[in-house]
C-alpha cells in the first residue's frame, strides 16, 4: 500500500509538476510580476506645474529647469478700441528648478506692480507611493512677493512691499482621464488698501483637469475666499486648455484675474467673470534637463 502511494506520488510529480512549470513560463513570470496595472502610482497627475494661475502638485524631477512665460491680456469686454484686451499685456517670466524630486525652488518677475516672487514647493506625499497607498498627492507651497512699484505718494519700505502665501495642495488622479485638486490657502499682506482692511486672508481652491486627447487636457481652477470685506475684490475663476508637445506645455485660458501669483490673484482680483471681465492668457513652459536622472 505504501509502495503504491509512493509510486503514485512519483508518477504525479513526474507528469504534473514539470508539465505545469514548462508550459506556462510566461504565466509564472506574470504571477511574480510587480508591475502595477492600476492607479496606485500615476506617472503624472497634471500636465503642467501650474494649473492656470496657481500651482499643481506636479513638479519636475531632480535636475530639471522649467522656464515659464506667462501672459494675461486686458479684459475682453473693453471692446475693439483696446482690441479686446490685447493692447494691455501683463507678463510674468519665471524659472522653476527642481533640486530634488521633492523640492522645487522658483523665482519670477511680473510686469504688474513690477513684482518679484519666489517660492518653495515641497513634496510631502506622492499618490500611491507609501505603505498606506494613500490615493492623494500632498504638496506644500510657500510664496513671497515683493512689489517694487514706485509710489511717490506713499513711503514704501521693504515691509510694506511684501506679501506671503502658504498653500497645501491635495490632489488625486482619479483615473486615466481625470484629476482633481484642493488648495487650502492663507495669504498675508503687510500692506492693505484700506485702514480697516484685514492683513490675513483664507481661501479654499478647487481645480480639475480632464484629458480630451493624449496631448490635450481641459482645466478649471476656482478659489473661494473667506472674507467679510466688501472692497470690490472677487473670487478668481479660470478655465483653460493644456496642449502638451514634448518639452513644451502650452496653456491657454480665460480668467477673471490679471495677476499670476497667489499673493496677487487671491486678494486683488477685481473682475466679474460672468459680466465679461475676462482676460485671455497663456502660460508656455519649456523644460530643460540639466543633470542626468538617477
Amino acid at each position, binding site marked *: 500500500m505504501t*509502495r503504491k502511494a*509512493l*509510486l503514485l506520488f*512519483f*508518477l504525479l*510529480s*513526474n507528469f504534473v509538476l*514539470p508539465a505545469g*512549470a*514548462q*508550459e506556462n*513560463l*510566461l504565466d*509564472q*513570470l*506574470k504571477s*511574480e*510580476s*510587480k*508591475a*502595477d*496595472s*492600476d*492607479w496606485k502610482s*500615476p*506617472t*503624472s497627475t497634471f500636465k503642467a506645474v501650474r494649473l492656470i494661475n496657481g500651482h499643481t502638485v506636479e513638479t*519636475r*524631477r*531632480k*535636475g*530639471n529647469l522649467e522656464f515659464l512665460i506667462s501672459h494675461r491680456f486686458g479684459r475682453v469686454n473693453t471692446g475693439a478700441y483696446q482690441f479686446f484686451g490685447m493692447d494691455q499685456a501683463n507678463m510674468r517670466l519665471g524659472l522653476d528648478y527642481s533640486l530634488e524630486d521633492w523640492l522645487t525652488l522658483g523665482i519670477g518677475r511680473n510686469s504688474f506692480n513690477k513684482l518679484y516672487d519666489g517660492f518653495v514647493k515641497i513634496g510631502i506625499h506622492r499618490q500611491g507611493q507609501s505603505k498606506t497607498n494613500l490615493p492623494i498627492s500632498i504638496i506644500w507651497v510657500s510664496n513671497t512677493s515683493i512689489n517694487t512699484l514706485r509710489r511717490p505718494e506713499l513711503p514704501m519700505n521693504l515691509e510694506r512691499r511684501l506679501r506671503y502665501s502658504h498653500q497645501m495642495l491635495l490632489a488625486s488622479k482619479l483615473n*486615466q482621464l481625470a484629476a482633481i485638486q484642493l488648495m487650502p490657502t492663507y495669504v498675508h499682506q503687510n500692506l492693505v488698501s484700506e485702514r480697516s482692511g484685514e492683513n490675513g486672508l483664507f481661501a479654499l481652491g478647487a481645480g480639475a483637469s480632464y484629458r480630451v*486627447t*493624449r*496631448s*490635450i487636457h481641459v482645466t478649471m481652477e476656482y478659489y473661494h475666499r473667506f472674507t467679510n470685506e466688501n472692497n470690490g475684490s472677487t473670487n478668481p475663476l479660470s478655465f483653460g486648455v493644456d*496642449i*502638451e*508637445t*514634448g*518639452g*513644451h506645455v502650452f496653456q491657454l485660458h480665460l480668467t477673471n484675474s490679471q495677476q499670476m501669483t497667489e499673493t496677487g490673484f487671491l486678494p486683488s482680483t477685481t473682475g466679474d467673470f460672468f459680466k465679461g471681465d475676462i482676460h485671455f492668457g497663456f502660460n508656455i513652459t519649456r*523644460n530643460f*534637463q540639466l543633470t*542626468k*536622472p538617477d
Partner: protein
Amino acid sequence: MKNIILTIICLLTLATARAQDYKTETGEVVFFSSAPVEDIKAENNAVTGLFNTETGSLAFLVPIKAFRFPKSLMQEHFNEKFMESEKYPEATFDGKLSGYSQSETGSQDAHAEGKLTIHGVTVDYGISGTLLIDDDQIKMEAVFPVKLEDHNIQIPSVLFYNIAEEVEVTANFVFEEIKK
C-alpha cells in the same frame, strides 16, 4: 520486480527534475530610436525571464515603467502617450528557442520564435541571436527591430520629439540556474 520498477521511476523523476529551468531578474532591454533631430535611448534592467533547456521554452516580461530615459519628461511621455503603461504595464515574450546545441560551450547562434506582446498587441516574431551556455549560467543576446505601427503605438501629432517609426531593441539576458 516492483522494486525495480519503482527504482526506474524514481530515477526518471530525478532526471526530469534536472531538466533545467533558468531564470533572470535583471535582464536588460535597451531600445534605440534614431531620428534626424534626436537619438533616443532608454534602458531597462528589471526584465524577468525564464528559460527551460529541455523544451527550449523561453519567456520574458518587461515592466514598461522601468525604462530609464536621459530626460525624465521623456520617460513620462513614453509611459503616458506611447506605451500607455497604466493600461499595458508590461511587454511580454512567449516562445521557443531552437537551433542550438546544449553541449556546445562556446558562443553559438540560436533562433527564437514566439509571440511578442507590446502595448497590448501580440505579434509573431522570429528573432536571431547568440547563446552562451556556461556551467550554471546561460547568456542570450539579440538585436531586433520593432515597428511601432505593428503594435498600434501612435505618435501624437503635436509631439515635437522626433521618434523613429522603427526602433532597435537589444535584449541582453544572463540566466541563472534555478537551484532545486
